């Protein structure tokens, strides 16, 4: 049975990614002064579900912030079912995912770029280095933690730039006041600007010092997707590494139908994590459960199923 459509699991995953990314940026916009000295509620929610923050701050400071214990849920879910967090929830992962879609159309080149590489182990070494430093009281996790990286980049770069660009362009339309006949563009732009001003833009334009280094690293993290899809998630992310360790023996496993498979390796072409869904041997620690392999298979030979690893040995 030749399959040409995208599987529903992939659409569900995209919906999940979109919603969580939207939640991240909604919470970002809520991180402002509300009347009576009150920040938006739960704006640090994503950090509370980040087990890397819990682990590193616990090792470095020997203390635990109660709210961070929520991240044990993330850890437990990953331990039981695998690294779904990276594929379905992480907003930084969703951005990398988005930037990965514009790659080569040639299937052979896509396969070559999506195969498992032993360099993917580098993220585990980065995690180990960070934890060793934490044990000596130096917590540098924030340099690489994906939520810190994304929030920092958004707060210090993207948001001030967008704020400035929006105000400047709407301001220009207002000043120049162009129109066709008796119709003025400002009758459309001004209500839009009013909505943006109330809900999105900053009250006063934020400015930050020394953002060049942050900008270079942020741009590099995004641009590396052109070299390898989801480069950050595969090679760098210490949270991904931590979840990879926790999810190395998940109850949700890939299931390949050996008889239907003709080794075309199309399942590898769009594999986001470089997890080798083909005959080379699936790597649960690298798999984001994006279901692209299932969707790409022309013979319906790849799917995921509940399976107890080691359970088959009698």
């Amino acid at each position, binding site marked *: 049975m030749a399959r040409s459509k995208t599987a529903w699991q992939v659409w569900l995953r995209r919906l999940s990614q979109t919603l969580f990314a939207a939640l991240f940026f909604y919470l970002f916009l809520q991180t402002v002064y509300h009347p009576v*000295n009150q920040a938006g509620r739960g704006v640090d929610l994503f950090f509370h579900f980040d087990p890397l923050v819990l682990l590193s701050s616990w090792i470095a*400071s020997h203390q635990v912030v109660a709210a961070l214990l929520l991240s044990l849920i993330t850890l437990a879910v990953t331990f039981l079912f695998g690294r779904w967090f990276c594929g379905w929830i992480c907003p930084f992962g969703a951005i990398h995912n988005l930037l990965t879609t514009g790659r080569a159309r040639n299937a052979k080149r896509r396969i070559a770029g999506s195969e498992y590489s032993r360099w993917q182990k580098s993220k585990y070494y980065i995690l180990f280095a960070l934890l060793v430093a934490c044990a000596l009281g130096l*917590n540098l996790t924030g340099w690489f933690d994906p939520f810190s990286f994304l929030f920092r980049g958004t707060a210090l770069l993207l948001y001030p730039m967008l704020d400035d660009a929006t105000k400047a362009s709407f301001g220009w339309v207002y000043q120049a006041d162009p129109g066709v006949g008796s119709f003025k563009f400002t009758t459309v732009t001004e209500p839009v600007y009013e909505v943006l001003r109330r809900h999105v833009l900053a009250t006063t334009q934020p*400015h930050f010092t020394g953002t060049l280094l942050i900008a270079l690293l942020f741009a590099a993290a995004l641009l590396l997707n052109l070299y390898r899809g989801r480069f950050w998630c595969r090679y760098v992310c210490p949270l991904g590494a931590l979840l990879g360790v926790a999810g190395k023996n998940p109850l949700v496993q890939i299931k390949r139908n050996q008889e239907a498979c003709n080794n075309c390796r199309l399942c590898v072409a769009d594999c986001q994590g470089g997890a080798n869904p083909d005959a080379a041997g699936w790597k649960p620690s690298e798999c984001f459960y994006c279901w692209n392999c299932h969707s790409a298979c022309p013979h319906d030979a790849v799917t995921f199923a509940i399976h107890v690893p080691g359970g088959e040995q009698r």
Partner: protein
Amino acid sequence: MTNAFFRWIKHFFRPPQPTRLDLSRRGVILGGVAGLGTALLVRSSALGEGRTFSPTLVRPPCSLPEDDFLSRCIRCGECMKVCPTNAVQPALGEGGIAGLWTPVLNMRLGYCEYECDLCAQVCPTQAIRKMTLKEKQQVKIGLAFFDKNRCLPYAFARTCIVCEEHCPTPKKAIWFQEVQVMTPDGTLTTVKQPRIDPSLCTGCGICENKCPIADRRGVYVTSVGESRNPKNQVLLDSSAGAGYY
């Protein structure tokens, strides 16, 4: 059932070859040495707690003592996003390598609003501790100093009371001494020269922020006297700070 469970757990620690992480000994040692080396380098730096104090390392109010702060801060930028005056900035050199991108206050860009503790509310790791607003208002962030070569009443015999007007503490931390000075045309005049009361100043920096000398201000805040560090104090002076938190 229980057997399957034990096999599953055993499988976690000894998975078959293709599913293993298969980390190389060389890589793990390299990672360990990198972490160890960076940590030791930073610990041995002169900027470490109790050796020297960076005057520009002015942390947001309710920040933990420096070592505890660095063991928790994940440099996420929540405090920088939420600060209503834009005072909270990512550190570049103020706190050494270990302090890169951690929050510091820049009083030229903003100041610490007396009625606000949002940075503590949003900090996910409590490197900036949550406190009641009343407690936060007692916390000393640093201490303000006048630069007599630039402050208008001192340098140019001109009347200026901007800093005193903005000072938010219930009893103003800036007071005046009336002094007879000579103006450029040779006549004598009386000006009010501002002074800091270190027991009242919280180091909020609004005086520095509002000072009309636009580039280098006539009054500025440094970290000395900060409540979070009992060592970074005006030594010999028990009235300035010294309260832990």
